[in-house]
């Protein structure tokens, strides 16, 4: 399965996302922000980073990049799209997922091994998790505070669009401890923590078992890749 990973100027984690796709059994395809071409991919990842230096607002300029026209169109047609950190901010700016992001309430960039709970395993990117599963995924951001108006919060809670919530520590002051959300259809998911950094033994977050051993991120990618492979088989 071909999974596109888009590089914007200032993208940082695109090689990590490509590695994660490969480890999950897919074929990563590097896509360029300035092209109007998805090159026949079946899923798309908007990687983390500081696209356009986070100028104006994080994710704002990137959400208007040429290729985003095709991404938005494909998302509306049901293609799985995952936005990680800066990618999440782009999805919010493009109105593909609800909410917006403010500066972390602590005022600084935060990097930590973050515990999350899977609140909805019925999305394209969370199928391989158990409902209510607790996972550890690295978090690293400066503008990660999820915000939305009260009506939106109620709506997404009612619709099951809150996909992940922070457990134990809310690292950035996000409303309702929300770490990730999906669109109503469940094909588009955005989250602040970085699943692509928890896919390879020795390079992931610390777990109770051992240093840098966390692999919980892999299921994001297998959820899309393996189910597509199965449906083709």
């Amino acid at each position, binding site marked *: 399965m071909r999974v596109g990973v888009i590089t914007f*100027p*200032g993208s*940082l*984690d695109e*090689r*990590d996302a490509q*590695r994660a796709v490969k480890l999950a059994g897919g074929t990563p395809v590097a896509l360029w922000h*300035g092209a109007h071409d998805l090159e026949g991919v079946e899923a798309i990842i908007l990687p983390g*980073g*500081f696209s*356009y*230096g*986070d*100028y104006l607002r994080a994710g704002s300029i990137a959400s208007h990049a040429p290729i985003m026209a095709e991404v938005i169109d494909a998302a509306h047609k049901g293609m799985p799209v995952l936005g990680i950190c800066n990618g999440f901010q782009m999805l919010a700016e493009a109105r593909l997922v609800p909410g917006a992001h403010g500066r972390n309430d602590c005022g*600084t*960039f*935060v*990097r*930590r091994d973050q515990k999350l709970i899977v609140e909805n395993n019925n999305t394209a990117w969370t199928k391989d998790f158990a409902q209510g599963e607790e996972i550890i995924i*690295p978090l*690293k951001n*400066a503008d990660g505070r999820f915000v939305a108006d009260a009506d939106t919060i109620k709506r997404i809670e009612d619709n099951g669009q809150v996909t992940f919530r922070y457990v134990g520590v809310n690292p950035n002051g996000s409303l309702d401890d929300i770490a990730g959300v999906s669109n109503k259809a469940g094909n588009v998911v955005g989250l602040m923590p*970085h699943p*692509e*950094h928890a*896919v*390879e033994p*020795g*390079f992931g977050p*610390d777990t109770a078992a*051992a*240093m*840098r051993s966390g692999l919980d991120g892999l299921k994001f990618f297998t959820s899309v890749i393996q189910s597509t492979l199965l449906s083709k088989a």
Partner: protein
Amino acid sequence: MSSHVADTVENAIATPDKVQPYGALGLKDDEYAEIRKILGRRPTSGELAMYSVMWSEHCSYKSSKIYLRQFGQKVSEKMKEKLMVGMGENAGVVDVGEGWAVTFKVESHNHPSYIEPFQGAATGVGGIVRDIISMGARPVAVMDQLRFGAIDHPDTPRVLHGVVGGISFYGNCLGLPNIGGETYFDACYQGNPLVNALSVGVLRHEDLHLANASGVGNKIVLFGARTGGDGIGGASILASDSFDSTGPTKRPAVQVGDPFAEKVLIECCLELYREGLVEGIQDLGAAGISCATSELASNGDGGMFVELDHVLLRDPTLTAEEILMSESQERMMAVVKPELLDQFMAVVNKWDVETSVLGEVTDTGRLIIHHGGEEIVNVDPRTVAIDGPVYERPVAYPTWIDALQADSADKLARPTSGAELKDQFLTLVASPNLADKSLITTQYDYFVMGNTALSFPDDAGMIRVDEESGLGFAIATDANGRYCQLDPYQGARLALAEAYRNVAVSGAVPAAVTDCLNFGSPENPEVMWQFKQAVAGLADGCLELEIPVTGGNVSFYNQTGDAPIHPTPVVGVLGVIDDVARRIPSAWQDEGNNIYLLGFTRTELDGSAWAGTIHNHLGGVPPVVDLNQEKELADLLQGAAIESLILSAHDLSDGGLGQALAESVSRFGVGARIWLDEIIERDGVDAATALFSESTGRVIVSVPREDDVRFVGLCEARNYPVLRIGVTDQGGADAKLDVQGLFEVSVDEIRQRSNETLPKYFG
């Protein structure tokens, strides 16, 4: 274009007696006379600007050169084997095998970071990263060595928050994992914090690039950010009446960083290298265009012609002199074959990087710069960049040092009861220099790139270079200013030994050295003596360990008022590991493993953290360092790592065994039972010394019970002192450190004491 009319060569010839502000630009009378002699006339204002910045201490190393030569002289054949590029280039390059090379360097950004901590530190990271790019490498990691004033001084939070914020902002935006560093507090750094930045890059052998302008007709291209009025050292002078009053007034001397521009520049440069579009390349750092043009031309085989009007400006009112001296960040200068220029432009356009062709390589042997159609610079580039002044400054044995060395810590009261030992153990754990640094390190991303095998708080950072084979490097830096104050020769060797040991405990083989030599004023003969001693100590030490110094940086004039900082030679050691899967973490993770202490403990408390923290004392002579023994220890650790006999290894340094134990139990919350009796008996020391002495050549390792016999056999076969001093114990809420017969303390309490110090002052 600027309305300011630059001083031309013709004008300089016509007005030989014009008074020039060379003194205010930092040039001495004899230096100015030398410039006149070289040129056979007075310099133009542009030439004066170039000479003044390039002959500054920072760019010319005029006070340190005669000593730094030792790093090239005290070398054995073995030290040259893996060295692909040595000192003098933007950064040294070391062959790490499998066709890969690693380039690394540490540099200072001390003075800007005191004036404007955020931008000073940010651009420090940016500058060292551009050095790495200009070698043809992809930067893959950064580290920072920070020294602040007293933790409770009212100005320290301003500096710390700014510096850490700047590093976090710039490094994280570049997507470079920050994998380690140092943070120290000492009143001697109050008015002069040290902000050193280290970067490491990797490249294939064939991608090596050098800074030289060769090939007549090749184009000189400036690309990256536009040139602005920031970072002009002598700006207030240049814009003053002595030059011309029509120019802009005061310019900030501190540069302003844009990490987004640099990130794009990195990717753009790597694509240019991949496509083979660059003949020579140089980053623009200190002295900006003055430095880049004169160095490229000096290292090439001809001359260079540049039209300054083609420089893209952020501020069109800049004068020619300011354009020559501007230290605007995120700029590179490349030498490009004319037939490849279109392809070059296609790549920079793809990355939206602004670019202009400034001129070309010539066969004149001269660096000629035009502005507004007139010749404003016409010099032999070597006289600017290479053949600057060299000083043999007066050196004097410090009047105070004998008394300081006589004031040993041996006379200080040492605790004997368990309660006293526990109290001092916890006081040390909570002391600013030993306390947990997460308040700082949680602001740094170490995950990005997915190749970080070890990072803080491990003793060394480790990065995978090759995803297939697992080949990687480890890197650690150290400097103990207190030891260097007591004895700069030994202090430098101790810094080297500790960095070397920190790399060895990670399972890597130490291979090369970089250094950042932070000292007071070279015009103070006692400081010059400290410098001379430290360089000799480091060069001798490297020869003994047979690892070469590949490059580095000297920072003088670090003083608070007239008081120089403690000499602080930061030493970075790079090691190579065949497969990062075999790395050794620095703390234990499971219960039931045996804990061994390697090495002897002597009564060495002079200059220690214990003497400083408990008694506010600095005196005596630093610990003995036996580099041959360090080598044996490193070999032993590698042998044990290859046979997978050890689960963790942690070097003993600041705070001694007590601090190493505290860190080992706190990291993963796994307790330990420790007995000191055998150390006390074998080494003839008391309990306090066993816990707090900072003797070198020591490491604690944890070994699975089933490998006990083999491990002890390995140590005995190599005749390295080894003692079983305990076992790892249960983790969880009841985890504790039990120093048997003396005291027990819960892991929670150790963590709490360690974790509360920095937030108390900076939270």
